[in-house]
């Protein structure tokens, strides 16, 4: 309690000094000063006594083995508890997280109906979708070879045990190379009916952890797992502190996972059971408390996973944000995250032994003539998916407008994407566009009238709306990132290459998708996601 003694010392010195001032000042009219200082001192004394008894109560409670981290024990009620909102009946106080920060970008072009007519012939798997992958992995197939879904396509020579397998069955028709002979995509012309490689499934509960890991690595299931920090496929000897699954996506026009999860309940339950064997901690599911009929969500029905509810604005569906509020990543440790799709694929490997990659891909955005959901497989061809849909002068994005990648109709969906968004290219000049914009545009700023209409749906376009500048405005990133992190200072630490500070300011808790909204609102138009990736790569090289 050293700092308390310093405080008392400071208080005493103020009191002593004040008598000096009192002597110097003329006349008795300033008795107020002495009395007010005495009053302040008295209040501080009472405060110290109360705070001491509060601490003692906490000490006593923890001696009894009670969890005091919530501040439930003590003289003071914790302030955050006093102002906590109403917790919905399906959640408890500990598992309900209401996040006030964030910003929802309402875009036109939501996909609601399933289009059964569209069929995709070509699928691809690309080593470039994996950050840690060497540029030239060992490709196990040749052009013209027939493969089944689940057959090994390539592996990284640095980690030959982890296999990357075919999403569908069919004929390998192209192996495309990019600069310096690096492998770009391996394209498979799909059969009409998918044939699967059958693996022998180890028992989830009875096999050893090593057996499970070996099985997943050999069957392609391991590639479903994403490791935080760095967003890489984890090393085989890595043991995560916890496993986190966000069951909803709050990004603009993002897909809903309820339908696909309802079709694959058994697989998901098996995947959760398997992950429980692989982690030393728990498996956490993050659920959307704002959804209609949230209590009856499919995800609420699984066992062996701790369910947490999130309410708020985007990015409350980001797994990184959820981790931060459930059990933050400590430096030097890692956690695993899986999307619902990854969970289902992993689950099928643990149920039937088949590598199944069904995806409900949403075709969204105002840059398409109509919007739909298409049932297909991982790595589907963009051109096949969007044939005749894309409007002129539109940008096609694999993923959502915040984190997606610009693609052409010759490209394929990225490994973990199940969304294609199209929005208008904003490549035109606008007279006084910075002062009096013609078209409504989404903005965090209240200088635009759109903040009065929170439900207005924007078409969205890709103009920069300004030029790049140095960091000027402050507090903007913090207002859309519901995490206890200072993004602007972190960015500066990355730019300066200061490792200790990067780590201290929480780079390990972030991934590009978490900062995407900060990048969107940035007045200075800074490329935050690529700066963050630079920093993450620097950190990874240090390992």
């Amino acid at each position: 309690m050293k700092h308390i003694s310093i405080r008392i010392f400071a208080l005493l010195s103020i009191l002593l000094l004040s008598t000096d001032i009192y002597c110097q000042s003329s006349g008795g009219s300033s008795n107020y000063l002495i009395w007010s200082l005495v009053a302040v001192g008295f209040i501080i004394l009472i405060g110290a006594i109360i705070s001491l008894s509060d601490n003692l109560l906490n000490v006593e409670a923890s001696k009894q083995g009670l969890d005091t981290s919530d501040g439930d024990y003590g003289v003071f009620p914790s302030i955050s508890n006093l102002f906590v909102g109403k917790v919905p009946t399906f959640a408890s106080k500990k598992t309900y997280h209401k996040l006030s920060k964030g910003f929802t970008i309402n875009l036109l072009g939501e996909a609601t109906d399933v289009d059964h007519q569209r069929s995709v012939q070509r699928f691809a798997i690309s080593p470039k979708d994996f950050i840690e992958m060497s540029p030239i992995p060992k490709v196990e197939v040749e052009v013209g070879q027939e493969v089944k879904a689940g057959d090994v396509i390539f592996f990284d020579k640095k980690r030959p045990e982890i296999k990357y397998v075919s999403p569908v069955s069919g004929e390998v028709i192209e192996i495309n190379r990019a600069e310096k002979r690096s492998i770009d995509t391996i394209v498979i012309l799909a059969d009409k009916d998918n044939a699967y490689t059958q693996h022998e499934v180890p028992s989830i509960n009875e096999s050893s952890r090593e057996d499970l890991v070996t099985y997943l690595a050999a069957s392609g299931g391991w590639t479903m797992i994403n490791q935080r920090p760095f967003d890489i496929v984890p090393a085989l000897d890595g043991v995560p502190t916890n496993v986190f699954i966000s069951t909803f996506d709050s990004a603009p026009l993002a897909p809903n996972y309820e339908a696909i999860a309802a079709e694959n309940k058994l697989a998901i339950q098996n995947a959760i059971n398997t992950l429980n064997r692989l982690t030393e901690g728990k498996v956490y599911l993050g659920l959307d408390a704002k959804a209609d009929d949230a209590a009856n969500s499919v995800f609420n029905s699984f066992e062996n996973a701790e369910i947490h509810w999130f309410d708020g604005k985007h990015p409350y569906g980001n797994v990184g944000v959820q981790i931060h509020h459930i059990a933050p990543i400590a430096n030097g440790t890692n956690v695993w995250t899986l999307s619902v799709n990854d969970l289902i694929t992993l689950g099928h490997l643990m149920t039937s032994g088949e590598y199944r990659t069904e995806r409900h891909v949403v075709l969204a955005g105002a840059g398409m003539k109509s919007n739909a959901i298409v049932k297909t497989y991982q790595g589907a061809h963009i051109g096949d998916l969007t044939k005749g849909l894309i409007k002129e002068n539109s940008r096609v994005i694999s993923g959502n407008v915040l984190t997606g990648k610009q693609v052409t109709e010759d490209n394929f969906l990225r490994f973990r994407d199940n969304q294609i968004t199209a929005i208008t290219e904003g490549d035109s000049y606008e007279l006084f566009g910075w002062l009096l914009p013609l078209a409504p545009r989404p903005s965090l700023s209240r200088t635009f009238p759109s903040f009065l209409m929170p439900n207005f749906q924007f078409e969205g376009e890709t103009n920069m709306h300004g030029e790049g500048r140095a960091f000027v405005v402050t507090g903007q990133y913090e207002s859309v990132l519901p995490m206890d992190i200072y993004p602007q200072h972190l960015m500066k630490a990355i730019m300066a290459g200061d490792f200790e500070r990067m780590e201290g300011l929480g780079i390990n808790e972030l991934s590009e998708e978490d900062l995407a909204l900060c990048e969107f609102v940035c007045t200075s138009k800074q490329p935050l996601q690529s700066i963050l990736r630079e920093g993450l790569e620097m950190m990874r090289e240090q390992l």
Partner: protein
Amino acid sequence: MALVDFIKRFEPDKKNKYAHTTYDAFFTFLFTPNTVTKGGVHMRDGMDLKRTMIHVVLAMQLCYLFGTYNIGHQHFVAAGEHLGFLEGFHLKLAHGLIQLLPIFIVTHLVGLGIEFIFAAKKGHAVEEGFLVSGALIPLIMPPDIPLWILGVSVAFAVIIGKEAFGGTGMNIWNIALLARVFVFFAYPTTIAGDEVWVSGFESLAPGAAASYGWAHDIFNGLFGWMDLATFNSAATVVDGYSGATPLGLAYNGGWSAVTEQFSVAQMFWGTIPGSIGETSKPLVIIGALILLATGIASWRIMLSMLIGAVTMSIILNAWGATPFMEVPWMYQFYMGSFFFAMAFMATDPVTASSTNTGKWIYGFLIGFIGMIVRVLNPAYPEGWMLAILFLNTFAPLIDHYVLESNIKKRLARA
């Protein structure tokens, strides 16, 4: 768009750096460029630095309007003519314009000129920082400031205060205040005393004659033709006029000395001598509300600065060693430029603390220290300029400790 093509015809060669930077600045002022996002997010917020800055400038337009009027009003009060608010309104505006326009033009010629040259030399676009600084500087200058001093101070502020540190977003001290503090410390003899607050006289000694120039003659011709009152070149400073500001009076004689010369209403509405744009409290507060409503300025800084100033004035009240200390704490806000400093100076995001916790501390200390300087400093009866510059210096330190505590919290997890 045809207009774009028409203007693009005038685009100078890129090799001519100075011409091209200038062209680019004006072109991007007219048109939002057609650049699209590349890598990273595909959509960008409609907000950019130009829009941010222009809203600050818009928020101070009322101060400009009233400042123009008040320059003229103070002139005629000193001359003992047209004492009513609306009497000789056209003359007051005319005289105000004659004083204010040169100040405005010199500020921008010097400041923007330097900005353009540096932008061309460094090969980046002209940044918008000076839009706000250039609009603020005239408002915080005394109306009778010699133009050469103004020019030198703006040049000092922009070159030493900003460009030396790397341009917009990199400066440590508020540019506008740096210009003002330069005037204050470099030319104390010219700027000191009560004389600078009233313009248009040879000196402020009673009986001194009004000095009108050619611009006044032009307006005289115009007003004479329109059959309105004209500038009376025989006007002299009335007996017993001092030109002192309320703060100057309060320093020597306390609240009673202030109220002998000025009514509370006068001080509130701002028809008192002072720097050009800061005297009218309601109009400054409207500006502050605009900044708060649009979310451009930090409410944390404004609120905590108010709390800090109130706290210190109450403490000073309790102390009560000098007449100025005994001025009741609410009355402190009628005098001086607290609200202007709060709305437009302390909230400058570049020089303020950049963390939210830091902003609370930063604002509070400005209010706290500024009031000490105002009341206890014998040389200069206003504190916000010095307090804000002082806290500008310490803002990075405040942020450092806020960040350290964040880092410590994170390390404690491991």
